Each structure stands twice: as C-alpha cells, then as structure tokens.
C-alpha cells in the first residue's frame, strides 16, 4: 500500500493517518454488535419483535415490554457487552506486549487466581461470611489481582519481558489450578456443582448494580488505555527501536499491562472466566482490519460481539442452558489450532 492512498491528518499537536478501511470495518462491527445486542434482548422465554426492542431501548416502548426488557433482559445483555469489550481489549494489550498471538490474559494469572479464590469461598464453609459481606465477584477480583501482581513480580528481572512473563504466568496458573482441584476434591458435591458452573463463565441472572460497577470501571480503564496506547505502536519494533523513537517503554508497558490485568479482572469478576474471547477477538479483528498488530477499539467491539453472540447461541440453540463459556470454547478451540498450524507453517517456510 502506498502512502498516497492514506493522507495524513493533523490537528494541533496530534497527527494520524486516515485509513478508510479501518474506519469502515470498525463502524460495521459496531453496527453488527448493536444488532446482535438487540436480537439477544428480543429472544427469551417469549420473543419481542426487534422494532419494539429498539423503541424500548430509546425510551419509546410500551409498559409491558419495558419491564421485561429493562429489568430482566437488559442487564444480562449489557454485562455481556461490557465483559466482551473488556476481554477483547485486554487480549489485544497482552498480545501486543508479549508480541505473541497466543498470549491471553488468562496467562497472566488472573483467571487462575480468581478461580481458586471463588472455589475456596464457595466450598469452604468459613468462606460464606466473606461471600455475604464482600460478595463473590469482589473477592474473586481481589484474588485474581493479587495473583496477577505475583506473576508480575516473579517475572521482573531488570524489567519485564513477554517471554518470561508468559512462562511464569503458566507456572503460577498451574499452582492455582492444583489448589482449585484440591479444593474441589475436598468439598461437598453440591458446592462443587456451584463452583464448577462459576468456573466456565456464565451470564445468568445479572442485576443493574453489577452493570453499573462493571461499566464505570471498564470505561475508566479504556480511557487510560486509549490515552497511553499511541505509544504502543513503536513497541512492536522491539525495545531498542521504541526507546530510540522516544517511548519510555518500561513505564508504558507497566501501565498497559496493569490495565490489561484490571480489565480481565473486572470481566472475570462479572462473568467468571469466559475462555478464549480475549485470545480470539484481537486475532480475528487484526485479520479483518488488515493491521499488523491487534487494534484496540475494534478488538473490544469484536469481543463484545463474540460474547453476546455466544450467549445468544447458548440460550437459543444448545440444550439445558449451558453457560456461555462452553460456546466460546467451541468457537475458540478450532481457531487456536488454526493459529498454531499457521504459525508453524510460516516458520517452516
């Protein structure tokens, strides 16, 4: 592609390249996400037709619809939307920082830590006190963040590098998994079923309070990410080039990594560890937008689309109310194999 095709735009101190394709695809993704969002609300125990859904969302609907839509179905769809976006952006950040298409925030220990904490609280009787006062999501979030910090500090050796970070993450995750397994083997079978359902990730029975906390935290983090992220691009050329271009890469990387951890933590605390969204969304968006690195905003949109789409499939197609995580795994597993085969073939050539 030649530079003539993409004229530069300058406003004051800021300049960027005008790329119509990226803007177009992002807009289409946004429209598609809104559409699936509406369909997801319209489908349930009984179907509300789409125009009515859209009218109600914009405050013009009828009383009956309003109750069903705003009080019952909306929170679930919104949590799905926010969690998907958070996971998509978190994945894009992790993959950029680790410079590896297979890195996802699961590797950073958040999922493992949050899962171990949640299972501990669900299965051990003394955990009931904590659960009732702080709430399971908040406790799981704390566990996840502490584990994330542990991974970060263990991987710190004169700076952070992606390679060490991922391998240390895998090791810490393995310990958390072992603890989870042990807790499950000890516990009462009814608690185990409850814990297991949490462990796949589900959007069942969400309330407006959950929507608001998740929304504000996610928005704040996204703002920080977008403000910092313009320095991300040069980092793909390696630390030396980035430093030469004037990027304080340690600081930028630390901030973005922390944001990735927090975004994933919020997502996990709201919906449980939904697998593969953070891995798949950035990679597919990157291919759609034909960019060399995972784009942030579009990844978030695609993550949201993927999650509410999967939730829709889980509710309408699959039998006996399987959690959404099963669907994202069915989509993500084959995609992972495709990525691996592609990566290996490329190396062999």
């Amino acid at each position: 592609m030649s530079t003539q095709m993409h004229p530069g735009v300058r406003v004051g101190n800021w300049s960027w390249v005008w790329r119509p394709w990226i803007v177009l695809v992002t807009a289409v993704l946004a429209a598609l996400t809104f559409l699936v969002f509406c369909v997801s609300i319209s489908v349930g125990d009984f179907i509300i037709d789409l125009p009515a859904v859209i009218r109600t969302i914009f405050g013009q609907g009828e009383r009956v619809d309003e109750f069903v839509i705003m009080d019952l179905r909306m929170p679930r769809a919104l949590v799905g939307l926010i969690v998907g976006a958070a996971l998509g952006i978190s994945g894009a950040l992790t993959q950029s920082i680790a410079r590896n298409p297979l890195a996802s925030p699961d590797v950073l220990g958040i999922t493992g830590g949050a899962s171990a904490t949640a299972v501990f609280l669900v299965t051990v009787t003394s955990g009931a006190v904590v659960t009732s006062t702080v709430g399971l999501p908040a406790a799981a979030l704390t566990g996840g963040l502490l584990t994330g910090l542990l991974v970060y500090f263990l991987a710190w050796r004169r700076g952070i590098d992606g390679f060490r970070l991922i391998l240390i993450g895998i090791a810490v995750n393995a310990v958390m998994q072992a603890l989870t397994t042990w807790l499950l083997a000890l516990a009462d079978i009814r608690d185990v079923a409850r814990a297991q359902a949490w462990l796949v990730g589900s959007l069942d029975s969400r309330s407006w309070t959950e929507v608001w906390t998740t929304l504000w935290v996610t928005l704040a983090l996204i703002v920080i990410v977008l403000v910092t992220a313009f320095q991300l691009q040069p980092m793909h050329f390696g630390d030396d080039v980035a430093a030469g271009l004037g990027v304080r890469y340690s600081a930028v990387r630390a901030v973005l990594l922390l944001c990735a951890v927090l975004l994933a933590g919020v997502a996990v605390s709201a919906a449980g560890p939904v697998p593969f969204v953070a891995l798949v969304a950035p990679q597919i968006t990157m291919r759609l937008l034909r960019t060399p690195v995972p784009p942030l905003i579009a990844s978030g949109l695609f993550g949201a689309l993927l999650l509410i789409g999967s939730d829709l499939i889980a509710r309408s197609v699959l039998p006996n109310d399987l959690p959404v995580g099963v669907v994202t795994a069915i989509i993500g597993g084959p995609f992972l194999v495709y990525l691996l085969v592609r990566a290996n073939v490329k190396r062999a050539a």
Partner: protein
Amino acid sequence: MVVEQRGLEPGPNEASPHRRRRAGLVALVVLLAAAAVLSLVVGARSLTPAEVWQGLFGDPGTDQRLTEIALIVQTLRVPRTVLAIVAGLALGVAGALIQGHTRNPIADTGLLGVNSGASFAVVLAVSLLGLQDPILYMWFAFVGAAGAGVVVFGLSSLGRGAGNPLTLALAGQGVTVFLAAMTTAVALSDKQTLDVLRYWNAGSVQGVGWDVIVVTAIFAAVGLVLALLNLPTINLLNLGDDVARGLGVNIAAGRTIGVVAVTLLAGAATAACGPIAFLGLMVAHIARWLTGPDYRWLVPYAGLLGAGVLLVGDIAGRLVVRPAELQAGIVIAIIGAPFFAALVWLGKFRQA
C-alpha cells in the same frame, strides 16, 4: 536448546565419565529403594520397619494388631508404592523422550494437554456409558491421553520439529482450556460424573486396585522397551534431520517409535493416576544436568528420578495435612511449578 559438548566426546581419561554415570545410576536405585521403604512405613498410621516386615511376610495368626498391620501394608501401602514407582518411571521417561524428539525444553506431557484429553475421555465414559469401575474408564483415559498427545506432538513438530518453546507452551495451555470447558459442559449436566471427575482430576496414586496396576505396568513396560530402543536414534536426530539422514537414520520410523513410546508411557500413567503435570519436565532437566545431553544416559536417569520424585511427593502428601492427604498430583504441581519458574529465571528456555 543449548547442546553441551561435554560427555559426547571422549576426554583424555575416557573411562571415568561412564563410571561416574554408572555410579550415579546405582545411587539413584538405592535412593529409590530407600524411598520405597519410607513409603511403606509412613502414613495415617505410622509403622516401624519391623512391623512392615511382619505385615509383608509374617503370619498374623490370631493377633488382631498384626492382622490389621498386614491389611494396611498389603492392601494400601504396597499397591500405592508400586504404582508410584511405575507411573513415575513412565512419566519421567516420557518427559525426557518428548523433550528429545521436539528439541523443546518446555515439552512436558502434562503441560501439553495430555492430561486434559484424558479427563475429557473419562467424563465422556462416565456420563455417556455410565462406567463406574476405574478398570473400565481407565481405557478411555488412555485413548483420550493418546489422542491429545498425538495432536499436540503433531502440532509441535509441524514446523520441522523446531517449534518455538513459547508457542508450544501456549498451545498446550489453550488445548487444556478448551478440553476443560468441554469437560465441564458434560460434567455439569450430570452430578455423578462430576463426583468421579473431581477425585480423578487430583491425580492420586492411592486407592488403585491391582487389576489397574498390572495393566498399567504392562503398557509402561512395552513403552519402556520402545523408548530404550529409540535412544541411539534420538541422539542422532538431535544432530539435525539432515545429518541424521546422512548417517543412515530412518527419520520417520525413529519419530514414530518415539511418539508411540511417549503415548504408551504417558497414557498408562495418566490413566491409572489421573493428571500429573510438571513431573516429566522437572526430572528431564535434572537428568540433563546430571548426565549431559547423551540420551542413552539421560533417559534412564530421568526414569529413576521420576519414580523417586513421585514416590517422595506421595509420601509428602501423606504428611503435610495429616490425617488427611494431599494427592500426589497436587504435591508435584506445587513442587514443579516453582522449579519451572526457576528454570525460566535462569534462562534455560531461551531458544538458540
């Protein structure tokens, strides 16, 4: 991977490295025997070695205490000790073998999805066919482990066997997450399956009957023979495929035998004990440090070390949370993960 020259070329005092390695092998066997004795003695009820001896060979007669001891020793302690040795040996050899074939220092049967393949198969067997007896669903675990093993091994060697260690580790992680989600999906719809699964998943050498142990041992023995036959070939394959071909190695046959041996060994161990991660990786690195890169020595060392570490892990699991027990698989993960982290820190996984 760094190929060290030490040990491959005969030095001025040619006999001494071999003698040293042979002595090391004998020392390992002695340590393993000591661990086995300890394993018979230690438990929820501690016995003296004399009591164990009586329990094994003595005639209890009408003495109730002696009958009890004989019961404990013969039906609990001896089977779990034997199984820990067999499974540890199998996993250690499999770990060293898979590292040799993939030329990848992160390769480990547990870390790469073999375990989750086995859990998934067990869940399917229990929920779809209603199997309850370990000897029956063991076969499914075997098939699942073998399937996942072949997939991961295949993926890792697609790029001419020079897969990036990081990508391989992430691939294993991804396969594990995928299979775990599928396993949960099945287990959630059926409480009985969930109950079988959660014990199986912990990875324990306890409470496994002789019928299972015998089958495991037969598979492991076949795998071991294949592995030992494969050793000279691995040494040559590590010189690079072109050099190996030039030296007259049938590469396809060599790799196939390797895959079959790894599958038999890891599959048998996983089917009998449940998932045990990090063991193969850990002992393969210790063995390489002890012997150098010659696989004819490295693999037997790794096997003996594997048996020893699993046995000690099992003993430790009996002691730390007395009178309850920590399953061996969990102990090994808790020891193995920091070991792995230390290797990362020391830069052992950097690809050359």
